[in-house]
């Protein structure tokens, strides 16, 4: 086999480049498959690697109580990063450093209470850190109210700070001239895009102004935080259902509290349909008002989570293949996917803002004849 390919390559140097590449790829794969077949331990090793990668991805998707950049040695519990403050409400405010958990290895003792990390959540335990399970293998330990400054909270805060600086600077540059300077030059077209292509077409010229602050804030917040999620810092805030829930509930509340008579009339007593249909439609329409923000919440959460899972799985494949073909291939694939994720980061921000604007638009729509 080898001989044939080798002579083929040597004998025919005029062949197009891609043919040669294909030949080399086939060769190397063949060699690797042969070597793999010879080593009995590889199978188990791969299995454990797979579960390790799976665990790593799962861990990556979760929020954490400390800021770990990377782990040097899992067994020796050596990590590079820093601890974050833990704030608990458990018969009074308890504040302590997450360093006490030693990355979940030990039980933290505060004012005679013992707390342990269980799947990224803080649970109340005894001194040994015993976790009690019910028959469905769920921990039954008491969970105190956790207001800790987690990794995600830190990033939310940083993004908020970044936005304040960026847009504060931009606003200030308008004081001296009517044209923006510096960062404002980059941001102004985007701000105008949100106004002219998201807010005005969906809400209408008459009412859009009162929603602009929310739409702009939510657009830039989601976009920037999605982009930060793609950096090697590895935080992805928007794949937490709590975060997307908070954003969606704001859209819901703003829609509900700014809605006019016409909006409620269309929900509870749909005009221009028979009375029977009015009765049938009312609960459906009412449910619809909840489903709309719910879909916002799930869409953002699912898109970002899926993106990260796929991206990290492909990165993980690099370590599973561990050969000259698979690893570069998965690297290339991960690279391409990262570019796609850049698009998704902006796209999800756009969709969230667009749909919010659409819901606001329906809330302030004036009565018109059907």
């Amino acid at each position, binding site marked *: 086999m080898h001989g044939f390919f080798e002579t083929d390559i040597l004998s025919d140097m005029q062949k197009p480049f891609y043919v040669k590449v294909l030949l080399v790829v086939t060769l190397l794969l063949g060699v690797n498959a042969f070597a793999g077949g010879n080593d009995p331990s590889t199978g188990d090793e791969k299995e454990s690697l797979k579960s390790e990668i799976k665990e790593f991805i799962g861990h990556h998707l979760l929020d954490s109580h400390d800021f770990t950049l990377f782990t040097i040695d899992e067994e020796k519990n050596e990590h590079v990063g820093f601890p974050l403050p833990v704030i608990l409400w458990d018969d009074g405010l308890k504040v302590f450093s997450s360093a006490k958990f030693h990355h979940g290895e030990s039980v933290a003792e505060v004012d005679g209470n013992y707390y342990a990390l269980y799947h990224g959540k803080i649970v109340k335990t005894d001194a040994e850190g015993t976790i009690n399970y019910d028959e469905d293998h769920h921990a039954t330990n008491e969970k105190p109210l956790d207001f800790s*400054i987690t990794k995600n909270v830190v990033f*939310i805060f940083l993004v*908020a700070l970044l936005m*304040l600086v960026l847009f504060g600077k931009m606003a200030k540059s308008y004081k001296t001239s*009517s044209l923006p300077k510096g960062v404002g030059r980059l941001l102004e077209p985007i701000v105008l895009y949100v106004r002219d292509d998201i807010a005005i077409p969906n809400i209408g010229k008459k009412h859009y102004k009162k929603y*602009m602050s929310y739409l*702009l804030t939510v657009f830039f*917040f989601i976009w920037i935080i999605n982009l930060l999620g793609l950096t090697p810092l590895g935080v992805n805030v928007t794949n937490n259902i709590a975060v997307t829930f*908070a954003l969606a509930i*704001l859209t819901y509340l703003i829609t509900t509290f700014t809605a006019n008579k016409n909006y409620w009339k269309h929900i509870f007593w749909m005009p221009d349909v028979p009375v029977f249909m009015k009765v049938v439609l009312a609960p459906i329409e009412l449910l619809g008002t909840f489903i709309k923000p719910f879909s916002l919440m799930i869409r953002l959460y699912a898109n970002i989570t899926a993106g990260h899972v796929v991206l990290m799985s492909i990165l993980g494949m690099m370590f599973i293949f561990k050969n000259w073909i698979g690893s570069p291939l998965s690297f290339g694939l991960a690279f391409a996917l990262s570019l796609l994720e850049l698009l998704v980061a902006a796209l999800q921000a756009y969709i969230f803002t667009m749909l919010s604007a659409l819901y606001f638009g329906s809330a302030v729509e004036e009565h018109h004849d059907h």
Partner: protein
Amino acid sequence: MEKLIEQFSFGLFFWQLFLFIGLLLLLRKFAWKPILDAVENRESGIKDALEAAENAKKEMQNVTADSERLLQEARVERESMIKEAREMKDKIVADAKDLAQSEADKMIKQAQTAIESEKKAAMADIKNEVATLSLEIAEKVIKGQFSDKGKQLQLVEEMVGDIKLN
């Protein structure tokens, strides 16, 4: 779904809501309002400037049309004024001619009358003179005639003969 609910972290929800609303309020006051106002001002400024330019253009056209019209009017006026002046001149000349004529006529008439009366006076004078002269001549002749008796008789005879003839 169950996993999602289990994953839901109330703390994160609280912080997200708290920080996001804080961010929203701060940005609204310090960023969005000034930015959108500035952009809007700029846009309305541009719109106004464009409108003003358009208006100025229209104004300019009006002014040009106006001046054109004025020029036309002035031209017409000038024409009419020249015409009037010409008429006036002609009339004045004619009038002057008439006046001069009548004056001349009058003067000629007066002169004629004066000449006539002078003539008459002269004639009368001449008549008187002639009469006087005739008388003197007659006297002299008669004196001469009467100095010679023969002649006187002859004359008488002649005269008597004349009378007889008559």
